[in-house]
């Protein structure tokens, strides 16, 4: 923030603004300090970082491919031939499948959340900014959609049409945008009427600068928190569909598919359940801890 943007400072006097920023601590500095003070959140960020790296690089460097079928069927974890987590019923290496499954699950989480983010922010900001009758109408639609058992429609969609991963992204993203729209709209409405916006307008700040400099930063906080908390919900939703047999297609896999396969054989082959279930639990725990930490950091009134 050391560079003063001439667009954001319509008076053209760059110096004092720079000094003011250097002298005080912004909302974001405070939030960052609080977030890094939260041990659970910091530990979660490290663990999640490691998991993301494993999911991205792991499948490329691991000795086994997740698709390769072998005669070593359903063997328990062993050092022999590097089947560290054993193999599945087709003799495919479970560690390789776990890494690719983690990659798919994280990808579904991020992409579907991004879908919900785009729809939700556009819808909510439009309603909040325009206000009045249009706002009323748009939010009534959200209310009606809120009451629908959407997941049943997703199940229907996935059984009726040919399944592919993009349909899963879109379908899950389309469920989750409703809350996002409500948050963004509420936040936009609240900020629009604040005195500092009026002051900025009175000082002659352009509309674009008001949106960029004053409204957006105040909306980003709650949205960021909600995004972090939506990713685990989406991952759970995907695994829910996978468990019902409606997830990604073979030989591709996801944590949900692996857990579902493992749960079916947990009596005699518990390792097939434990590794994916543990990975899923750790991933979701990390995301939830980070989301909670972010919320506490940005909204410290409950501490």
């Amino acid at each position, binding site marked *: 923030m050391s560079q003063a943007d001439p667009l954001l400072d319509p008076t053209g006097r760059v110096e004092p603004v720079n000094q003011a920023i250097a002298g005080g601590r912004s909302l974001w500095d405070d939030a960052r300090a609080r977030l890094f003070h939260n041990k659970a959140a910091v530990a979660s960020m490290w663990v999640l970082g490691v998991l993301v790296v494993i999911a991205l690089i792991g499948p490329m460097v691991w000795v086994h491919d997740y698709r390769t079928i072998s005669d070593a069927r359903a063997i328990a974890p062993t050092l022999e031939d590097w089947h560290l987590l054993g193999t599945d019923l087709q003799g495919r290496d479970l560690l390789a499948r776990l890494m690719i499954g983690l990659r798919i699950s994280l990808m579904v989480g991020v992409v579907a959340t991004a879908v919900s983010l785009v729809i939700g922010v556009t819808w909510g900001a439009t309603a909040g900014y325009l206000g009045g009758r249009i706002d009323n109408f748009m939010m*009534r639609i959200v*209310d*009606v959609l809120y*009451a*629908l*058992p959407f*997941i*049943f*429609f997703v*199940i*229907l*969609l996935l*059984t*009726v*049409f*040919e399944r592919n991963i993009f349909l899963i992204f879109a379908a899950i993203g389309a469920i989750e945008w409703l809350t996002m729209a409500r948050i963004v709209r509420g936040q936009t409405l609240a900020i629009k009427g604040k005195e500092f916006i009026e002051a900025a307008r009175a000082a002659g700040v352009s509309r674009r600068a008001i949106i960029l400099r004053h409204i957006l930063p105040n909306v980003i906080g709650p949205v960021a928190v909600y995004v972090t908390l939506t990713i*685990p919900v989406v991952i*759970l939703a995907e*695994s*829910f569909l996978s*468990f*019902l*047999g409606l997830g990604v297609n073979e030989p591709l896999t996801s944590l*949900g598919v692996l*857990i*579902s396969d493992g*749960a079916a054989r*947990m*009596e005699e082959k*518990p390792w097939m*359940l434990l590794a994916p*279930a543990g990975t*899923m*639990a750790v991933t*979701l*725990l990390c995301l*939830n*801890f980070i989301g*909670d930490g972010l919320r506490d950091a940005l909204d410290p009134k*409950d501490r």
Partner: protein
Amino acid sequence: MSSLQRAFSRIPWAYTARRLLIAIPTMLAIITMAFLMMRAAPGGPFDGERKLPAATEKAIAAKFGFDKPLHEQYFDYVGGVLQGDFGPSYKTLGKSVNDLIADGLPISLTIGSLAMILGITLGTLLGVFAGLRQNSSADYGVMGLAMFGISIPTFVTGPILILIFALGAGIFAVGGLGTYPNIGMNWHNMTLPVITLALPQIAIISRLMRASIIETMRSNHIRTARSKGLSERQVIARHALPAALLPLISYAGPAMARVMTGSVVIEKVFGLPGLGSYFVNGALNRDYTLVMGAIIVYAGLIVLLNLVADILYAVLDPKVKYD
């Protein structure tokens, strides 16, 4: 005026009527969406491996009304639903969708409502316990457990509970509605499904209640109650708890929706023949009338419960004013 009369007089009748009016287009939208989606699907419910003789195909089409134009089929269906008739099942021969719903719904409703009761009771107790000891080790312990409850999917906890309590200790049934002498909906068959379904609710509700009681304990009316010289126990029981419970009512609607979706998984894990398993099997087998019927029943329940929760909220919260 008794408190019951006072509560009755607080029911916002105009608001209730308006909400009921909105419920009608909502339900119609659901029916239309589901209907169109299934008619848009490539392949019909009777496309088999073998090509059927033309005459047979014609007879089937006539029996289920496929030979009529689309809008007539739609109006026939909606008309039937309005009279409480969901039509014949496409795949279960000789049974109507009404029969199947009558078979499955009691099971789903039983595990669903028991799980809700368990979730609300335990969740409230744990949340209040943790919230009154904010930032103590007891608080961190409960909230840590709650985080696990939120993060671990039910289809993981379910099999693990089966492994421990059914296959291991042999206390409960592994699944299904049991074998002799424990047939039917009894504690032997229902305990594990209900607990599994309730766990995420316990976790979510305890987090909600913790935040709520913390906020309430800082509010002005608690300060007033304290300054009147009431004991801490009276302050909590008479003044803090009723106020802190309000957010729980507005969560009840979404919670019921979650429990119902959750019960689809629970029914599969435990092999229970509830509405959820009928729905999933129907979707996989393209038994369109069954799927439609199940969706309408689910949606109707969710719309109704949301309405009840909102009215209850208005009755209990003196600050809420509906125009």
